[in-house]
């Protein structure tokens, strides 16, 4: 799909738009700095950027749904021939839904939970027209079929919680196309959805654009999605448009370092470089919230860089093949216990088997509900298990107590998904890190201080941040600190639950590189749980694919990805954009 020609008049023209945030009691900040972009009839335009780039604010400005503190200080927005900024609020109401519609972010919370789906999808008709109830209903049925919602009679009367995430997104799409608006803004419509569902939503949008001739402004941080779907692309950073052009052209001849880094900072499914390209913090492209983060230096004491670069994704023969974890026939059933409610059983895991030896890295992949997080929690001894056996270094987890428990804890450390709740907000980072030292093998009080400082340095954080409180650090910084905390007691294995999912793409790359570098230095194994296949490909030599609590496929990462045997694995691989 290569619509690179501009057909005359643009549908939407944003010219030199500037928006400022006026905060009472704080600094004012520039959100958008003279942004200009166009959308022509019949095309799909992508706005790509990380958080803070201003892409979502741009879409809100077009719909006049900016938060109260933000004001447009310059520029114009015109649709067809109307100057949108000159309209009053009443006129704008007539505009929304009819001329420009929105498919919102976060499908799971964007529908009114106490109103029927049918009513909500029919709402545009109720506002902008004069149809009878019957007519509205039949229109809704039409829309349902366009977005592939089957069984329209029943589905009309359902409430949002009776729809899956993907179906909720389709319902939102349905109400957006209801009045066949010339332009639809899709604001990150696939976040919070599983990978396989994401792919289907993208297909849906493509089809709708073709069938109904609707233009789309597609906003995302996911390069892969954008390159799949959009005809033209604008790359945004810090409220400015850095680069723009046809999708194909951009991806072949991107000139701006940021765009290049964005493209290359994502790990690939196969043939990953040893280190991902990142926007190094001290290269002049420092993010405003990354003050205090420095480029990572591989510790010269740990061995030459040679050794680090030789660390391929194979288990090195230097290490004994000592088995760390051995899981046999592990099953886990959750029941809700209550005096007054009927017991509800949910089987989270069924007969899971795998082994992990020292020096190996395992990636557990699956979508939500696959049970992957449950496995991790059981391995961490956070969740109990009754059926099956889990061994750590030959000892059954359920039988580890007291002194052995201390050993276990020292050797098995977690890194959690949510960087924002991973530190106790009431204590400084230093204080929280010192806690970890209490576990380390040599409990020397005097060395605690220097140990903490050294580790902090190694994860690329500035000493001044040590004395700060968690809320003063960015997400990426907190995650680095969390890794430091985990490594302070020199564990044999790190268990990570989606450690980079909550981070921006450029920061993800930094943290992934960090993990690799630290592995080279401290020689720990990792088990990483994620939905993100390329990450597994980058970090792990072995992979375990889960679906609905069962192991679907397992083996060497490269082999599985090149030739998957199970259908589900194939599906997962195909859903990865690019």
């Amino acid at each position, binding site marked *: 799909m290569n619509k690179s020609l501009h057909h005359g008049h643009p549908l939407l023209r944003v010219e030199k738009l500037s928006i400022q945030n006026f905060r009472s009691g704080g*600094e004012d900040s520039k959100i958008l700095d003279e942004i200009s972009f166009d959308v022509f009839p019949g095309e799909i335009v992508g706005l790509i950027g990380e958080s803070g780039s201003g892409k979502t604010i741009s879409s809100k400005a077009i719909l006049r749904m900016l938060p109260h503190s933000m004001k447009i200080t310059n520029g114009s927005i015109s649709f067809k021939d109307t100057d949108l900024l000159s309209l009053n609020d009443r006129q704008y109401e007539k505009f929304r839904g009819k001329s420009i519609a929105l498919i919102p972010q976060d499908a799971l919370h964007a529908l009114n939970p106490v109103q029927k789906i049918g009513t909500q999808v029919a709402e545009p008709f109720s506002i902008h027209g004069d149809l009878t109830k019957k007519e509205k209903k039949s229109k809704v049925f039409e829309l349902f079929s366009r977005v592939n919602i089957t069984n329209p009679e029943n589905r009309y009367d359902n409430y949002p919680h009776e729809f899956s995430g993907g179906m909720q997104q389709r319902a939102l799409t349905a109400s957006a196309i209801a009045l066949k608006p010339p332009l639809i803004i899709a604001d990150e419509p696939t976040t919070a959805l599983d990978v396989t569902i994401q792919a289907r939503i993208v297909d849906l949008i493509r089809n709708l654009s073709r069938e109904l001739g609707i233009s789309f402004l597609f906003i995302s941080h996911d390069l892969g999605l954008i390159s799949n779907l959009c005809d033209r692309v604008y790359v945004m950073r810090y409220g400015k448009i850095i680069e723009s052009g046809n999708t194909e052209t951009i991806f072949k001849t991107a000139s701006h370092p940021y765009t290049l880094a964005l493209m290359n900072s994502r790990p690939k499914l196969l043939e990953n470089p040893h280190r991902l390209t990142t926007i190094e913090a001290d290269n002049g492209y420092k993010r405003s919230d990354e003050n205090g983060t420095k480029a990572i230096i591989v510790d010269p004491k740990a061995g030459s860089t040679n050794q680090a670069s030789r660390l391929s994704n194979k288990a090195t023969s230097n290490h004994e093949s000592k088995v760390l974890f051995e899981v046999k026939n592990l099953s886990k059933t959750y029941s809700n216990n209550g*005096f007054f409610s009927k017991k509800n059983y949910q089987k989270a895991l069924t007969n899971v088997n795998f082994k992990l030896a020292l020096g190996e890295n395992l990636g557990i992949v699956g979508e939500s509900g696959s049970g992957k997080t449950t496995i991790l929690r059981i391995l961490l001894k956070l969740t109990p298990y009754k059926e099956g056996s889990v061994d750590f270094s030959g000892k059954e987890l359920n039988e580890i107590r007291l002194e052995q428990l201390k050993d276990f804890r020292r050797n098995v450390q*977690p890194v*959690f998904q949510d960087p924002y709740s*991973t*530190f*106790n907000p009431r204590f400084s980072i230093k204080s*929280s890190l010192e806690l970890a030292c209490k576990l380390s093998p040599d409990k020397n009080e005097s060395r605690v201080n220097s140990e903490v400082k050294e580790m902090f340095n190694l994860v690329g954080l500035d000493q001044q941040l040590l004395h700060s409180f968690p809320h003063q650090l960015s997400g990426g910084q907190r995650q680095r600190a969390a890794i430091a905390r985990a490594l302070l007691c020199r564990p044999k294995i790190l268990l990570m639950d989606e450690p980079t999912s909550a981070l921006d793409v450029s920061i993800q790359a930094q943290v992934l590189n960090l993990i690799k570098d630290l592995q080279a230095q401290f020689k720990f194994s990792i088990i990483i749980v994620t939905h993100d296949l390329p990450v597994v490909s980058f970090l792990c030599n072995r992979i375990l694919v889960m679906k609905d609590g069962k192991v679907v496929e397992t083996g060497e990462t490269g082999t599985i990805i090149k030739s998957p045997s199970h259908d589900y694995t194939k599906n997962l691989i195909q859903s990865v954009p690019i």
Partner: protein
Amino acid sequence: MKRINWKKFGLVTFSLPLVILIIMIASMAEYVAPFDPYFLDVMVMLEGPSEKHWMGTDELGRDVFSRIIFGAQVSLQVGVCAVLVGLTGGVFVGVLAAYYGGYVDQILMRFMDIVFCFPAILLAVILMANFGTSIFNAMLAIGIIFIPGFARLTRAITQTVQRQAFLEAAVCLGLPGHKIIFREILPNVLGPLLVEATVAFSYAVLLESALSFLGLGSQPPEPSWGNMINIGRGFIDQAPWISLAPGLALFFTVFIFNLFGDGLRDILDPKLNE
């Protein structure tokens, strides 16, 4: 580094000086009050507000203003003690229920829920009838009534904290149980508890006055806002100030402390810290 939103300190800045003023007046009643609250002067019974007696005199010739100041002492004392009793009991039960979960939690909270259902005044009145009418018993009775509320709050927050990653990280670091409670859970519970305690304090002051009003709290001639209002009722058309003045003091005190609690809530509300 994130910016601080100064607006959220507004209410506290406004109410804190008044709060401190009230506390100081009450604690230094002996020095602030112009007259002895028990001093009878039969020459000036039922006199309206004047230069000498700012809020007039009551039916026994006592200076109303002085009695109001000493009444503040009673009210604040009961308030503080009741809240302390409620906090101790409530936090203990709440943390226990959340920490152990399962049946312990279910049984404890069911019990708390039922006690919570009783109208506070009803319970207070019944308990006072049993314990005997005195200030100390009022503290105890009101404190007991507060326990379920604090227990519920503590439990809810503890459960929220238990879901946070840092708590699980602490477990994985091998932190022993008591350290987890005192380092990870309690400091995060303190904030909302403080807000609740302030509101409970105001309510305790109100309850104590209500009890005295009904004749079940402090007894005359002890100066307490509640019984002053009650006795004043009998003289309402001749000398309305006997009832209305202490009531105004009560109203003002409760209002200021409630504003202070609102202010604290503004400061501690995590949303406003962005």
